[in-house]
């Protein structure tokens, strides 16, 4: 009997250890740790500054290098150090990044200056008729904000009194 009991105990220990050590991938439990930056950037809105394309959800490092020294950099640790969001200020726009999958990816572009236009030609101060002319009718409209979605990115065009007064590109969190 002692032998049987020993085998049962040993089997229980082995089963316990196996459960803990089995390399079940995290996604088996439904967790997603985020796709790589290049995967996210496959289809997204692109903002252009000079010769630099800024792709929502793309790796920020080459973009920040290409744009040169920013006028200002704002860094904010999220609560409990779950990532450092950064906002780089350039002439006429701000570029936001956040960490994802080990790299800082581009999370937003916010246009600040009427002298800056989107690659399609929209500028702050334009009449709202320019929006549909340049971007079509595939938008949702809420409180004067026209939202266009492309892949994992969104272009939000804010209007007040029929005039474009803010333009924001964002990467859509997955």
């Amino acid at each position: 009997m002692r032998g049987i009991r020993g085998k049962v105990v040993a089997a229980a220990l082995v089963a316990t250890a196996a459960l803990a050590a089995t390399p079940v991938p995290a996604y088996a439990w439904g967790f997603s740790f985020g796709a790589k930056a290049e995967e996210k950037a496959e289809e997204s809105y692109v903002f252009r500054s000079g010769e630099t394309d800024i792709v929502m959800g793309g790796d920020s490092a080459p973009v920040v290098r290409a744009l040169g020294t920013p006028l200002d950099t704002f860094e904010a640790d999220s609560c409990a150090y779950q990532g450092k969001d950064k906002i780089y200020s350039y002439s006429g726009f701000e570029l936001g990044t956040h960490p994802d999958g080990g790299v800082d990816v581009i999370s937003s572009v916010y246009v600040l200056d009427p002298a800056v236009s989107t690659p399609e030609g929209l500028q702050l101060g334009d009449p709202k008729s320019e929006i549909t002319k340049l971007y079509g009718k595939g938008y949702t409209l809420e409180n004067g904000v026209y939202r266009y979605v492309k892949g994992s990115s969104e272009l939000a065009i804010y209007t007040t009194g029929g005039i474009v007064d803010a333009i924001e590109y964002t990467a859509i969190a997955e």
Partner: protein
Amino acid sequence: MRGKKLGGVLLAAAVAAAGLWGLTCLLVPKYTGRVVEGNFTAEYYREESPHDVLILGDCEAYENISPVTLWREYGITSYIRGNAQQLMSQSYYLLKDALREEKPETVILSISAMQQAEQSNETYNRMTLDGMRWSREKLEAILASRMEGEHLIEYVFPLLRFHSRWAELGGEDLTWFADRPLVTHSGYYMRADVRPAGTFPAERRRSNYEFEEKAYEYLDRIRELCEEEGIALILFKAPSLYPVWYDQWDMQIEEYAKAYGLAYLNALEEIDVIGIDFSEDTYDGGLHMNVYGAEKVSRWLGPVLQKQFGVPDRRGDAALSAVWEAKAARYDAEKQSQEEEFARLGYLTRFSGDETGASD
């Protein structure tokens, strides 16, 4: 024979359960490094005496008010049940959980969490919920705030979530196998380093400034629970300069407070009265107060609590005084240690580095 077989089965089950318990203790994150927030919820149960004031909320609650200062200068006993990105639903269930232990006279609720009704990062949920004692409140808190892809079973058996940590086990996993160090001061997260506030990004427009229905639902539930229990509820906004606290949000809280006869203390509007100097009183550029700023906020809050809400001065109670003197001594020691390190290095080693520390 049948008895012996049953005995063998029971023994095997007991060994398996003990093994699972041991592995769980070994593999769950210990939060004793750079990230300590995962220990906040459980630390509350180690309290030895009741509190007249309970403070609930996210980082705006646990980084901006010093309970030791409230005690030392006003004899107010308080505790902060706050966590990183603690949702309104989680504040509600943590309040219900606390009411099983004690009945405070006043609850201060940080309302910054109104801007986010759903959790955005699983780690925040784990840090807030794993430390709760098992109860109906914990179960409901999990169901109310879990993210898509999070499963109840992983909260019941944390080993299912953290088993893959075996590859990154370190010394602290053995040191803190079954216990944890105290990481807060009555729920307050102390920082004695200084990083002055600079410039902030442009205020971004939003298409909708209305708080979400779910946030209101749990604000209602907190208010109703306080009413049922005869607890005074105070809505509180910390003096954080960033992220932006929009005027439209402020107006909604003002209207809510007015509609239900609640006090709303917006420290952002009292920065001069409080005496906050953002070149000295913040450790992260204006997002949160450091210990100097938190003490100033507490010196502003203390008289309000006593004059407007009649929170008593307990310094005449010998037993409470003994408890709080011990807390104050520990608080002073950590403050001095952080001050010396910051003066010497210009930063605090424990909080430096770029890693997220998610698996600390």
